[in-house]
């Protein structure tokens, strides 16, 4: 461009200046876009009638670290206290139990379901990273760890989400592995050993402390699922998941009553014994529908495993939109499961000793019914406070047909009533 006095270079200079100021502005000053942070703080209060009470404060953090890139962190504190059924059934005499190492004993009055007292604290931390790979694929990597006085767990997981049809269809596949180690206070019981044969150790071992080593188990889980947008108002998700655990799967604190074949009176107990592997599978379906203002979430799961347990679970949330951003959300959940093959409420002393046996009610024929209500209230421009109160009931066959003699006088499957209360604050900034 010949710069004789008259030529105008103003346009070219203006463009060069824009180049300098334009791009340089973006490089040095990231656009502070809102909603990069989401923080959820919540406390769960779970309390069973005269059994265990759990207070569980949790802190969730989700930070957007780039386009479709997120960092998630979950910090969980768990304090459990109260009593838990040890597996033995109520009977017509008082009952005393000794811990596997024989160092602690506790007694239960006649006619009452034996419970053992415990309290424990647990801290768990999970970290997750979400990374996009092009517009259609997202990977999630996660690590987690959980520590309590007698239990430790570490694990990692990865999930792939692949979009099709302009994100109308999403295929999710995931894998996770966990390693847990349990070191029960009171020692690791010998499965199926009769409590009467447990010998209290000589005092000398006292100060060396209760804990005599521990056991471990590892778990592998895989999931494959499809999420499909059906209409402007509806989407559905369908997952198949499979999980395999192997190693020490027993509950070290659980025993099973041994009763006299004719009178049905409890004569002894055995530490429970479960198989050392478990293959779990489930089909899960979720359907979400947006009515003119309200939203319905319905989920159904069919579960089955090689312990002989099958379970149907249905879960329904109906969210009523109130004024502004507040809402009321009733919740209904029903789950019915069949007993594990080796579940028995008790064993007959004359019968041959089975390889595996457990009286843990959670492995029995069980129906869980939960209903509750959640209230959500807006806080400021984009934050929210919510309160949820629910009631949960677990019932089983209290008077099974195969009960013998005195057993018929007692409730062999006491109903559990629990209250669930949760307050949560969700902050976005």
């Amino acid at each position, binding site marked *: 461009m010949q710069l004789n006095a008259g030529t105008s270079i103003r346009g070219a200079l203006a463009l060069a200046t824009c180049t300098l100021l334009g791009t340089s502005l973006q490089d040095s000053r990231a656009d502070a876009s809102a909603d990069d942070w989401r923080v959820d703080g919540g406390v769960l209060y779970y309390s069973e009638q005269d059994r265990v009470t759990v207070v569980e404060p949790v802190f969730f953090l989700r930070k957007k670290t780039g386009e479709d890139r997120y960092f998630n962190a979950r910090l969980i504190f768990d304090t459990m206290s109260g009593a838990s059924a040890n597996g033995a059934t109520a009977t017509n005499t008082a009952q005393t139990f000794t811990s596997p190492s024989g160092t602690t004993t506790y007694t239960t009055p006649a006619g009452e379901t034996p419970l053992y007292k415990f309290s424990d604290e647990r801290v768990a931390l999970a970290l997750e990273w979400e990374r996009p790979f092009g517009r259609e694929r997202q990977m999630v990597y996660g690590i987690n760890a959980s520590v309590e006085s007698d239990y430790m767990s570490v694990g990692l997981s990865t*999930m792939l989400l692949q979009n099709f049809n302009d994100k109308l269809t999403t295929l999710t596949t995931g894998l996770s592995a966990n390693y847990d180690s349990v070191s029960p206070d009171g020692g690791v019981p010998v499965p199926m050993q009769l409590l009467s044969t447990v010998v209290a150790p000589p005092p000398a071992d006292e100060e060396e402390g209760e804990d005599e080593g521990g056991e471990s188990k590892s778990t592998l889980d895989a999931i494959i699922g499809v999420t499909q947008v059906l209409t402007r108002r509806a989407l559905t998700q369908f997952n198949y998941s499979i*999980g395999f655990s192997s190693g020490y799967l027993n*509950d070290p604190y659980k025993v099973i009553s041994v009763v006299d074949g004719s009178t049905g009176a409890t004569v002894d107990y055995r530490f429970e014994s479960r198989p050392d592997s478990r293959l779990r599978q489930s089909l899960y379906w979720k359907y979400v529908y947006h009515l003119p203002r309200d939203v319905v979430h319905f989920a159904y799961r069919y579960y089955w495993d090689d312990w002989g347990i099958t379970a149907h679970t249905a879960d329904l949330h109906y969210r009523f939109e109130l004024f502004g951003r507040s809402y009321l959300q009733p919740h209904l959940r029903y789950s019915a499961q069949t007993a594990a093959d080796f579940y028995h409420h008790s064993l007959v002393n004359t019968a041959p000793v089975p390889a595996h046996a457990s009286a843990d009610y959670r492995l029995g024929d069980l129906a869980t019914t939960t209903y509750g209500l959640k209230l959500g209230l807006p806080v400021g421009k984009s934050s929210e406070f919510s309160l949820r109160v629910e009631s949960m009931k677990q019932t089983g066959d209290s008077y099974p047909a195969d009960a013998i003699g005195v057993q018929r006088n007692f409730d062999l499957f006491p109903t559990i009533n629990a209250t669930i209360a949760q307050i949560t604050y969700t902050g976005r900034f």
Partner: protein
Amino acid sequence: MPVRLLIVTVAMFGLTACTLGPVHPWDRDLLAEEKMQLVPDAVENFLDEHIYFSKEAASGGQGIGGGGCGCN
């Protein structure tokens, strides 16, 4: 798969086939809402999974991973 299960699967698919017309990107206003996400409240979902994991034998289905616990 037991027969009962097959019936359940077919029923589900039947339900979803009704209106599968394409949903344009600009028709996803409702689907973009927070309450329409598959897990609208991660805290509640996590706590529920923890309760039922430790109070029932069945577990999982919705997602994977997450620390076990000696919950008893």
